[in-house]
């Protein structure tokens, strides 16, 4: 590597800084440049991806490091911008730079001819910069800042086509839903600051582990932090924003479903895991929420007929799986799955974008047989789907196996049984999506479909290749590398239980087989099943009415409260309290003015009586 000696971990901050600079440059100067400056963010993230390898190399040779500069210092309070380079953050750096790079390159093709594409790429740069800063943050405040900026980036990207009412609403929904979690996160962070006197993550761990904070505070803080993670990572009941977020351009979905927005929540829990581990109840909560989300979203993914919506529920489901893994103390497994899922899901969304761009359709039943017209997209899509379904030797197989192992070790059989069933379910819905969209007869009005240009297919192929191979980082590669779990969190070398692996694999294959029989050969009729359980089917198709419930609450509680207070302020405080007192003065004046008769002798009498009165007072009282 050139410059290998001079560029090391201390350069890590440059990676987000490059994208941040690209954001400002594109916004300010983009309009004077070809393609509105779209190449600046791509170049910045490419440089970031290159730098990532230098940082990784230095990390492996010299170990973790951290650096900070003071931002605000006030009395004895010091707030710093700090960077912490350890194995977790470098893993995330790799994932984020890689996926963001490919997504941006793909966007060069996807967004060709779009009128405001300079702004689009700038928002990509902002998202990437924020996420990269988030994974590098060494203190919670800096993390929160990056966290909120990730949300802003997603808001801008989801709402990019703001002329469409759906996109504008989806962006708003994403921001507000995650904002609810953010409120919890901020309260949690400040609570930890008040009890430890520091935002610094390692200091907080140190104080917490040495018993410097009460157990109650730790539990409350961990729950609040988890609230933030639930919002960003779309855990039930905050999942509603993610399916709507597919209203944005497809590459945007690819980015926020894999590397930025939803990864932030999982990363937060992973980063703060030492704190969570001090609160066993919260760990159980994390596992429970994760498991429920895993199952819940999986069933919904099975009935969605909109391609991107189905993929979105699949994302939610897999995020649930990651949370379950974290709740089962499986840090390495969770991050491994985050990487494996991120690569595959980015690819699936890019593939879906390629399909909808060519056919102009979003419903999966309107597609079909597209493998004949779009071979590259089809092959890569199949690889991505298989990876997520857990077919060996693709990445998803290894990560899922590791998670099941962690669940079995730390959460017991009940969790394991449900998780395994849901895993089979995820294989089934993946098979459904892949088979319905790319196999079967080609629809007549899709005859004109064609493969996308190279600038879009090359990222697909690269992602597919990664999805194929990244699983092997789970395996030991010699004495210095004992598997990913050991690399990331010193969890010991790669190991597996034969029966559990076999069972996982069998269930995955069973899921795929069921999908094949249903959606390819037609041995099982999904229509009949839907008719037989029509009540349940209706509930599922309507996404369990969660959205409707929230809408009702917003309309009848939140907005009603707003209208009520606004009315109260006007009618009670202003018109009654303020204008009322003014009116009282006026009315009393109307009565009192009758004293002014206009007759001289009345005034004269009053004056005389006044004088007499004054004299009497002077004489009797004062003298």
């Amino acid at each position, binding site marked *: 590597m050139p410059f290998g000696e001079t560029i090391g971990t201390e350069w890590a901050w440059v990676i987000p800084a490059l994208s941040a600079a690209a954001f400002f440059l594109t916004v300010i100067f983009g309009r004077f440049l070809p393609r509105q400056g779209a190449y600046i963010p791509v170049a910045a993230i490419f440089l970031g991806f290159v730098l990532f390898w230098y940082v990784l190399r230095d990390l492996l040779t010299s170990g973790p490091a951290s650096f900070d500069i003071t931002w605000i210092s*006030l*009395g004895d309070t010091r707030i710093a911008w700090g960077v912490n380079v350890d194995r977790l953050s470098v893993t995330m750096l790799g994932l984020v730079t890689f996926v963001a790079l490919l997504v941006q390159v793909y966007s060069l093709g996807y967004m060709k001819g779009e009128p405001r594409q300079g702004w689009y790429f700038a928002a990509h740069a902002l998202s990437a910069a924020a996420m990269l800063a988030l994974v590098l943050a060494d203190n919670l*405040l800096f993390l929160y800042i990056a966290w909120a900026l990730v949300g802003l980036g997603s808001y801008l990207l989801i709402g990019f086509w703001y002329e*469409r009412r759906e996109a*504008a609403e989806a962006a708003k929904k994403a921001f507000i839903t995650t904002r609810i979690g953010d409120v919890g996160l901020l309260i949690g962070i400040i609570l930890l*600051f*008040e009890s430890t006197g520091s935002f610094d993550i390692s200091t907080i761990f140190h104080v917490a582990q040495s018993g410097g904070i009460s157990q109650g505070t730790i539990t409350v803080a961990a729950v609040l932090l988890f609230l933030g993670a639930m919002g960003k990572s779309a855990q039930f009941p905050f999942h509603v924003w993610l399916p709507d977020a597919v209203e944005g351009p497809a590459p945007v979905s690819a980015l926020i479903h894999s590397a930025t927005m939803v990864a932030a929540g999982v990363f937060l829990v992973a980063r703060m895991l030492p704190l969570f581990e001090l609160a066993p109840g919260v760990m159980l909560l994390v596992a429970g929420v994760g498991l429920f989300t895993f199952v819940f979203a999986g069933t919904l993914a099975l009935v969605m007929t909109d391609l991107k919506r189905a993929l979105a529920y699949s994302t939610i489901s897999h995020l649930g799986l990651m949370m379950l893994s974290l709740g089962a103390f499986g840090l390495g497994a969770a991050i491994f799955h985050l990487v494996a899922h991120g690569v595959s899901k980015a690819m699936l969304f890019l593939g879906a974008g390629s399909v909808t761009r060519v056919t102009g359709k979003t419903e999966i039943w309107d597609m079909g047989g597209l493998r004949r017209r779009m071979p590259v997209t089809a092959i890569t899509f199949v690889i991505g789907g298989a990876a997520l379904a857990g077919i060996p030797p693709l990445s998803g197989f290894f990560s899922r196996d590791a998670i099941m192992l962690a669940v079995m070790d730390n959460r017991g059989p009940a969790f394991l049984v449900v998780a395994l069933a849901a895993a089979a379910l995820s294989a089934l819905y993946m098979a459904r999506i892949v088979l319905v969209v790319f196999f079967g007869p080609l629809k007549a009005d899709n005859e004109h479909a064609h493969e996308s240009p190279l600038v879009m297919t090359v990222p697909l192929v690269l992602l597919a290749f990664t999805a194929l191979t990244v699983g092997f980082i789970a395996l030991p590669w010699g004495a210095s590398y004992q598997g990913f779990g050991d690399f990331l969190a010193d969890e010991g070398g790669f190991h597996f239980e034969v029966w559990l692996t076999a069972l996982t694999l069998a269930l995955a294959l069973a899921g795929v087989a069921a999908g094949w029989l249903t959606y390819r050969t037609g041995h099982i009729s999904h229509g009949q099943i839907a008719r037989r359980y029509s009540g349940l089917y209706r509930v599922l198709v309507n996404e369990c009415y969660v959205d409707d419930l929230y809408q009702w609450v917003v309309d009848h509680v939140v907005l009603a409260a*707003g209208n009520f207070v606004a009315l109260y302020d006007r009618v009670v*405080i202003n018109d009654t*309290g303020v204008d009322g007192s003014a009116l009282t003065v006026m009315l009393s004046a109307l009565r009192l003015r009758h004293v002014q008769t206009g007759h001289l002798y009345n005034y004269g009498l009053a004056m005389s009586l006044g004088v007499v009165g004054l004299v009497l007072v002077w004489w009797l009282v004062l003298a």
Partner: protein
Amino acid sequence: METFNSYVIFAIVSLPLAGAVVLVLLPSYRPRLIRWVATVVALATVLLTFYTFGFYDPEEGGFQFMRQWSWLELPGPWPLGEQGISFALGVDGISALMLMLSGIVMFTGVLVSWNIAERNKDFFILYFLLLAGVFGVFASMDLFFLFFFYELAVLPMYLLIGVWGSTTDFRTFVRTKEYGAMKLTIYLVGGSVLIWIALLAIFVQAGLGTFSFVDLQESADFPRTFQQVFFPFLMVGFGVLAGMWPFHTWSPDGHVAAPTAVSMVHAGVLMKLGAYGILRLGIGLFPEGAQDWMPVLVVLGTVNVIYGAVSAMGQRDLKYVVGYSGVSHMGYVLMGLATLDHLGVTGAVLQMFSHGVMTALFFAVVGAIYDRTHTRDIAVLEGLAKRMGVTASLFAVGGLTSLGMPGLSGVVAELLVFLGLFKTYPLLGVLGIVGAGITAVYILRLMAKVFFGALGERWRDQTDISRLEGFSSWVLVAFVFLVGLFPFPFIRAIDSGVSTLLSRMAGA
């Protein structure tokens, strides 16, 4: 340089007055000339305020750039020798920042007032009188002149709103400009009565024969009961101006009636006078009274935050939304002051600056929209971003600042306030953060409705904000970013002032 430094504050206060005098002499049939003169005066003033803030030395702290002229000598032997009322000017870190805020808002306000066609000479004269009053309050070190300038700032508002304002029919009720102007004036004059009572009580009780703030703070000894009785006079008197619940209704109604530049000054600077008064006079002179009354103020501040935010959610007029959002944000200032904690008070002052710039930006943008569409009804405006891209971006910056997006000014100030609150009133701190969450709801709903979605038919031929208005708004945006990214110079200056004020707290 020494001479220049000792006259710079005097120049800041007197430039608007001199500008007003020059404008009186200009013929009213030359509106272009009048505009240019006004712009030049405002530019000179704002540059001087930059100079003051830039060369204020926070390491040294205390009052700097001081200069005083004796105005009235009071006969009689006084403990500190010859005394009287003097025209004493000077700034500490807090007031230097506030002067800069007023300068920025003044300058941008003049720029957005370029399109005032009717009687623009009279408008600028009154506008400059108003600003002279504002500068005078922030720069006065003598309570008598502080009060004098305070009154000077209040009265031109009446004419500015009554003559150049707008009457709005909201179908279920009507708000005339006369109503808005009248209510505002009565409220503020009512507040000033309370303040005047307190000032006279301070003068008599201290027995020093002086209104000098520094002398009173250092040499006067106010018994605790005296402080307890008279602190509320200052708290409510200045609190009215700061939009303290339940004395806030003059503020949204005043905004709705006022012309753009006056809304900017009103929300951006005038409301800060109230908070400044509570801090400088209330906390500065009555530290013990403040300690006893702060639980009340912090509760009122919390009510402000939540009540203002929820109220803003239910409004249908753009200016009402921004007005109630101002009530909500001033709540953070009051909460921060009420903590009496180093971080909290510093955050409150920074919030004063941040909100001043942000709300000026809001009103500039809303004014630009109103000038073009002739409506502020949220239900009617739709999809404006398509035709008014720059306007939408500017509003978005304001909106994101107000909901606490990092990188913009609001979050730094609010964070410091929250840190202070969690030390003193943690539960109310939680409510404060929840209030910031509600802010996100109404701002984003507003943006989604007004700017996004398909372009409404009526607005097909809408034009974007003009270059001049755009420039003035970008100036404000620049400060929003500056404070958001590099808050330290600001915090250092505020800190030097706050430390002095808080050092007199019992137990500090």
